[in-house]
């Protein structure tokens, strides 16, 4: 147990095989016809071969990050997609029908607006709620946790989230500051005291809001499930099926903010490191739970604050990488394949992040030199990336093809590569997206 996040366990290999078998089986997917089922299997096999690095796939799988592009392409606003589930359904299907990428991006990132309304979420602004209806939802950076509160977080992360964090980010859950913490109810005389907070009108309306938001989330989940079923049923496997984050990013993005965590590296280094370690098991569980629910093998892990420029090499090795590596090993030991999406540049980090077991993760890059990546991380992990967004948004199909050709020459040799975009492709010209997918499908065939 002591090394559960440090060393690869003996059964990691067999667990991974089991998970791949489940994913490949497509069990429960309502396939349209046998051809669709065969296409699904063929695409999962392309991805499995690329990931495991044991043999070259028959061609390079093409899996861009759809982002909000399907919504724009369907001619609707993100507001409509977040509030009108039928509109969302049409948008997702149209994108796959017209572009035929090798994997499906489940619409989980197009969240139900009504749920956020009910909870009075303060962590984001979204269309019709702080930004215009044709805008994108955006994060509101703040110090949601003060530097003095590190010890509270370390002592009891669940308690801190329940009593301090939720009341700050959800207006409707302010009464949760009085939510009794476990475990108090182990002696009969303690039960009445533990129940008193639930007697207040304020707490009751908070719980009611939670119930309503939960019902709405289920309605949305049913629609998302239908969308996923229909698209996968046409032969497109999902690209990922769970979610987790680097512990440093949990603290930097959600709790302390960019400025806060950057100063903490100087002012509170020990607390910061301890808190990262404390959050690691929760982040492993988070990724496992998501993949278990979807039957998928890849939890999506967007990486934010470890990018080039955001910290020195020494800071990366001290603060960012140790707990991220533990998360990676923890997920691998569950048979999962972490899909690590390194936003920004990772050119300075390539040597450090190559310290992972072979054939068990995907490193997805944005503004990273893919040739350098292939010679370093590419020896141990499948690479994905990195058609840049500036090119997709402002370039021409010819320029996109030229880029993809070089990308495949640099990063695609001998397999171990998934061609993708450097970030969510919202704002891209449809002709450029088409050029990226169609050209790469042909040029990416291994002879």
């Amino acid at each position, binding site marked *: 147990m002591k090394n559960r996040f440090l060393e690869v366990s003996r059964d990691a290999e067999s667990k991974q095989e089991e998970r791949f078998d489940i994913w490949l089986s497509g069990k429960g997917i309502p396939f349209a016809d046998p051809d669709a089922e065969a296409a699904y299997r063929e695409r999962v096999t392309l991805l499995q071969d690329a990931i495991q690095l044991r043999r070259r796939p028959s061609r390079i799988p093409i899996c861009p990050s759809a982002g909000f592009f399907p919504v724009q392409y369907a001619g609707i606003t993100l507001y409509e997609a977040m509030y009108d589930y039928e509109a969302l359904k049409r948008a997702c299907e149209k994108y796959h029908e017209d572009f035929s990428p090798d994997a499906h991006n489940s619409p989980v990132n197009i969240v139900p607006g009504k749920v956020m309304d009910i909870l009075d979420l303060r962590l984001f*602004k979204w269309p019709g709620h*702080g*930004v*215009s209806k044709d*805008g*994108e939802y*955006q994060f*509101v*950076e703040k110090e949601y946790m003060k530097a003095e509160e590190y010890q509270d977080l370390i002592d009891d992360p669940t308690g801190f989230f329940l009593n301090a964090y939720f009341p700050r980010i959800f207006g409707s859950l302010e009464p949760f500051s009085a939510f009794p913490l476990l475990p108090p109810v182990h002696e009969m005389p303690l039960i009445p005291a533990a129940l008193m907070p639930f007697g207040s009108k304020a707490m009751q309306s908070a719980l009611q809001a939670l119930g309503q938001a939960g019902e709405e989330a289920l309605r949305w989940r049913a629609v998302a499930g239908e969308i996923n079923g229909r698209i996968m049923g046409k032969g497109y496997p999902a690209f990922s099926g769970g979610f987790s984050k680097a512990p440093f990013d949990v603290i930097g993005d959600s709790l302390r903010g*960019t*400025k806060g965590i*950057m*100063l903490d*590296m*100087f*002012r509170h280094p020990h607390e910061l490191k301890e808190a990262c370690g404390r959050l690691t098991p929760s982040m492993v569980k988070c990724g496992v739970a998501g993949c278990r629910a979807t039957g998928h093998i890849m939890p999506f892990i967007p990486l934010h604050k470890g990018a080039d*420029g*955001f*910290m*020195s090499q020494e*800071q990366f090795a001290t603060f960012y990488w140790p707990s991220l590596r533990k998360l990676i090993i923890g997920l691998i030991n569950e048979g999962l394949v972490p899909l690590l999406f390194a936003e920004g540049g990772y050119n300075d980090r390539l040597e450090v992040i190559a310290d992972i077991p072979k054939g068990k993760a995907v490193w997805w890059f944005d503004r990273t030199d893919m040739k350098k990546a292939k010679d370093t991380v590419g020896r141990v992990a499948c690479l994905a990336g990195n058609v*840049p*967004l*500036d*090119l997709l*948004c*402002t*370039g021409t199909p010819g320029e996109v093809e030229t880029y993809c050709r070089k990308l495949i020459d640099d990063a695609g040799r001998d397999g171990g590569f998934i061609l993708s975009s*450097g*970030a969510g492709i*919202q*704002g*891209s010209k449809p002709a450029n997206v088409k050029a990226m997918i169609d050209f790469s499908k042909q040029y990416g065939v291994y002879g």
Partner: protein
Amino acid sequence: MTESLIRALVEMQEDEALRETRQLLDEDTDPLSIIDACSRAMEAVGKRFETGEYFLPHLMMAGEMLRQISEIIKPKMRGDKVRKGRGRVLMGTVKGDIHDIGKNMVTFLLQTNGFEVLDIGIDQSPEKFVEAIRNFKPQVVGMSGLLTLAFDSMRDTVQAIQEAGLRDKVRIMIGGGQVSEKVKAYTGADAYGPDAVAGIRLAKQWVGGD
């Protein structure tokens, strides 16, 4: 006299830098010479950033130390003349985008480099930029944006500045997120800066004063 303060600032020793500042004031040091020391320290920090020794957290920390030092010396500054600015820069995040960390960092560095900066905030329409150019009369306009939707907002803003007849009065620099040379060409801006210090270099080049 101010050598230890400079060393503390450059080496990111916050407690020591603040202690040195208080001690200098106790010894009746001219607050202006403390400000000069801060500028010299920031120059050294900027150099370390450019050579790849320091990164964004170090700039943040330097900014935080300077903020506190300026609060400490403020009461002693009454009556002192503020130095004349090296030039005026208008800063803002373009329409539809609410991100501000990059913009704030450039604003801070411009100020420590002696520029007079008007920061009009986030999600600013082309009209707001034009209005601010008319009133503030900057030599340089800095536009920031993290999202891809900022590309069009930047292009619209440059166009609005053109239509208002102000294009030849200002140099325009852009930065943030996925912005690149390619986006510079798309928007019609004069230059793109890959990081905060690059923005300062551009402003200095254009306004001169070095």
